[in-house]
Structure formats: C-alpha cells, structure tokens
C-alpha cells in the first residue's frame, strides 16, 4: 500500500461512514451536516486523484451551495429540530436488502474487472489550466447548453415557488366569494419566505 492508497482509503472510510450516517440518522439537520462531511472527504479523495479543480468545485458547489439549499428546505418545511422517529419507512429492510445486493454486484464487478489495474497519478493532471482549456476547446458546446439548462431551471424554480405568478385571477375570485378560505392565508404567508432560497440560488449561479 502506497501513501496515496492509505490516504485515499482513510478518506473513503470517512466518506462512506458519514454517508451511512446521512441515511440512518434520526435528526434531519444532522443528516445535512453529515452530508457536508461526506462531500468534504470526497473532495479530499479528488485531490488525491490529482483532480484539483473538481475538488474545489465540489467544495464550492456541494458543500457551499447544495447543503445550504437543503438546510433551507429543511427549515422552510418546518422540520422538527430534535429526533423524529418516523424518518424511515417500514419497508427499510427490503431497501437494505436491495442496497446490499447493489453493493455486492457493483463491488464484485469492479473488483473482478479492474482489481489489479494501477493508475498513474501525475501531478497537475486536473489543474484549472488543463480543465479550462479542455472545457473551452473541446467541450464548449455542452458548456453553453448547460448554461441554458441552468437558466431554465432557475426560471422554473422561481415560477414553482412563487405563489402569485399565475393564480392571481384565481385568488381574486376566491377572495370575493369567500373572504377567509382556510387554505389561503397559509399559502400566502409561506409565499414570502420562499423568496429567500430563490435569491440564494441566483447568487450561487
């Protein structure tokens, strides 16, 4: 075992262990925080694999943005802060069996297929310079398509989470007939704080 393998094995143990805690913990907020640990350990693994730029993007986007968005979602859905007993569905033994079967098949195939292959680790192979020239020379068309996709998802998220985009005539009608319908004030009250994650999302991109 070389030093790189030792470091990668340790980081992999941390990543897999915290991922296990993500799917088994009884506290929602702890699940999001264990996700940070898992993604951080994976970023370290990318560094060991000489993919520096991917590692920093992983830290920026996953740890910085996606986990924050998930925490926003947890808080906006008014999840209980402490332990909640019903986070797992009753069929989780079936789920565990399926996951164990998936792990067995994948690990067997990968170890049998690539078990004695060695990969050369060349420093600087995934630096920002190399990846930048690859993106803007070879992969520039998918890059641009991806920016259109991001714009579409941004517009979609805003339209989905704003409650006053297309239902304005509807609401005026209900307000006229029924001054205080039971479902409406809640929806209106929730419409306000959801502007926050949108702003967050815009900022990230």
């Amino acid at each position, binding site marked *: 075992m070389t030093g790189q*393998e030792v470091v*990668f094995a340790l980081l*992999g143990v941390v990543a897999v262990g915290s*991922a296990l805690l*993500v*799917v088994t913990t009884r506290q929602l907020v702890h699940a999001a925080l264990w*996700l940070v640990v898992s993604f951080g350990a*994976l970023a370290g*693994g*990318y560094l060991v*694999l*000489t*993919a520096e*730029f*991917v590692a920093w993007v*992983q830290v920026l*986007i*996953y740890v910085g943005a*996606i986990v924050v*968005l*998930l925490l926003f*979602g947890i808080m906006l*859905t008014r999840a209980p802060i402490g332990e909640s007993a*019903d*986070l*797992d*569905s009753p*069929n989780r033994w079936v*789920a*565990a069996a399926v*996951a164990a079967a*998936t*792990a067995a098949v*994948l690990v067997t195939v990968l*170890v049998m297929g*690539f078990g*004695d*292959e*060695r990969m*050369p680790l060349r420093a600087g*192979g*995934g630096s920002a310079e190399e*990846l930048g020239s690859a993106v803007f020379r*070879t992969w520039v068309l998918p*890059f641009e398509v*991806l920016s259109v*996709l*991001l714009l579409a*998802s*941004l517009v979609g998220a805003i339209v*989905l989470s704003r*409650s006053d985009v*297309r*239902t304005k005539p*509807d609401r005026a009608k*209900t307000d006229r007939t029924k001054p205080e319908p039971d*479902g409406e004030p809640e*929806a209106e009250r*929730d419409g306000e704080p959801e502007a926050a*994650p949108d702003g967050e999302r815009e900022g990230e991109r």
Partner: protein
Amino acid sequence: MHLAYPTVVAALLFSIGVYGVLARRNAILVLMSVELMLNAVNLNLVTFDVWLQDRLHGGQVLTLFTIVIAAAEIGIGLAIVLLVYRNRRMIDVDRLRDLAEDRTDERPDRPASPARDEEAAR
C-alpha cells in the same frame, strides 16, 4: 494507486444512496440520497479519467457538468418539495398517494379542498 480503492468507495456510496432513496420517508432526505448517488458517479468519472489519462479530460469535464446538473436538480427538486409542503402541510413521500393505483375508486367521493383546487389550477 490501485483502481480498486476509488471504484469500491464509489460503489459503496452508490448503494448507500440507493438505500436512502428507498428507505427514507422525508422528501428532503430522499434528495440528499440522490446527491450521494450522483457523487458516487462523479468519483467513478474522475477515477476513469485519471486511469485512462484522457487528453481531452472528458471524465473530469463531465464531472463538472454533473455537479452543475445536480445543482439545477436540487433547485427544482426543493422548489417542488416546498410546493408540496405548501399544499399538503407534509412532505412524507409514503403518504403522498394521490397518484396510487388502488385509490382511484375512492377519488370522486372525496371533497376537494381549496388547496387542491389551487394546485389543479396551476
């Protein structure tokens, strides 16, 4: 470095994500498990990029694209989850059974709530 280390880590992460998607009831936890599966795929992409010494860096560039798509997916997914929460007051995926096959016969006699009307109008 042996190729077995990163690929085995990726396989284990992927199956943990599968377990989370199947076993969790909270929709946000399901989204977190999907993120775990996407990360496993990313690790595989980087590993095989480094192993093949791809001069075009296809694997790492595709990893960056996957990360961006994951960000878009989590944005849309959370917006949908928040919309479900606004209409139903819960995001328990086991109890969101309006599209289930076995309840179609009891749909007509159920009174429609204003929240459901608002959702249908969208």
